[in-house]
């Protein structure tokens, strides 16, 4: 397995997490792993899914504007 087991899911972007999740789903669907690894992969898939969900639920966003001199300030 070359999946980034070591990567901390909490630091992953949505794209990184969902890409890995999609990869794991394909692996599980192929069903070529032994039972123990399959369970491990499934466990990681659920963690990745939670990470993605958390990002989706997080409605915090910054709306900013470039002002004179290239500075960035909150947009009113």
């Amino acid at each position, binding site marked *: 397995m070359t999946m980034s087991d070591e990567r901390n899911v909490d630091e992953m972007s*949505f794209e990184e997490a969902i890409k890995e999740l999609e990869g794991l789903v394909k*692996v599980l669907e192929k069903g070529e792993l032994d039972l123990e690894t*399959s369970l491990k*992969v499934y466990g990681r898939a659920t963690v990745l*899914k939670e990470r993605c969900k958390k990002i*989706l639920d997080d*409605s915090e966003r910054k709306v900013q504007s470039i*002002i004179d001199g*290239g500075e960035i300030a909150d947009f009113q």
Partner: protein
Amino acid sequence: MALILERLTMNFGDGGERPNIITVTKLNTIAKDLLATSKDLNEVWVSGEVSNLTKHSSGHYYFTLKDDISEVRCTLFKFARSKLSIELNENMKVLVFGSMSVYVAKGNYQFNVLDVKAQGLGDLYLAYEALKKKLEGEGLFDTARKRPLPRFPKRIGVVTSPTGAAIRDILNVTARRFPADVLIAPALVQGEGAAESIVQGIASLNQARVDVIIVGRGGGSLEDLWAFNEEMVARAIYASKVPVVSAVGHEVDFTISDLVADLRAPTPSAAAELVLPDRVEERRNLVHLLARAQKGLSATLGRMRQRLMRTDRTLSPKTFLVDIQQHEVRLDELSGLLDIFVKKKVDLDAHRLDALRASLVGLDPMRVLDRGYCVIQSVGGGILNSVTKVNQGDEVRIVMRDGALKAQVTRKE
């Protein structure tokens, strides 16, 4: 009146020169030929405004071209009209190219139009067409060059007016969709300096390393939207390292920016939707993905179970038991067989016994008695089969077929 008649009579009089009498047709034809020879009336550009435009079902257009003082009937025949890049409209200020001619049948003259260029707006159209041709030739519109947008941008850049409807629309839509930061590069979107400010905005957002850029404004007239048809804007979009979505609020025509951009959105709202995925859909997708993972896992589990049952059979106590049971069954079978053998042997013996018994029956002394023989026993029960064992006066027992007698030996003979 009388005078005219007199003159006519005079002119037709004998010896007078014969007057040059021509037909109406000839008259108009001469006029037509005359006009055709005038350099000033042929293949000239005339400026004026279109009015009384009639689009005939034959495909020919008829209209009056006028200025403040004068007007002239114009014809635009189908063959010429089909080559035009613009469509004529009432009150349009135009430059028409063509020649003056006489319509012989009606005796009126008209301008036969071969080409039309719009003035004012028309100049913009011409500039648009020219720039489009030029940039197209340079490959700025090549579809192969179009870059895919990031699937989940973390920060989107917007080049537009900070006070326009476009930015409000974009902020509204993005708030509902996949969460991403928005960085606005405020720009003039029409009038003097608009193109420069849009170019600057694209550059600034590239520097700020946003994931995708929306360049646009709300709808407006062709003149309002003109900045988006400027070459410098087109080249800035082309040079952007970050994918650009054009969002100029008009659905009919394409601006040059639309053509160069990686993706064209019909409105700023639509651009926001194209740039950011739908949050609800993504949530649904997550659920779907996990369901697929579950399905895959349970299929694997099912397979594993089957394989385990196959490969671990020799080791598991359960299957061991089954083996034992099988042996027991075999044993039962064997012992059953044994029973059968034993039984058969017993039966056989019994049979032989019967036979023996039958043959023994023949030897039964009692049966001899039936035939009239007797058995003589001593008082002690011993069989007396010799006279030597008996003395005179001894008491003996005579066993007969149906009973026994006691007797006394009276004499030995």
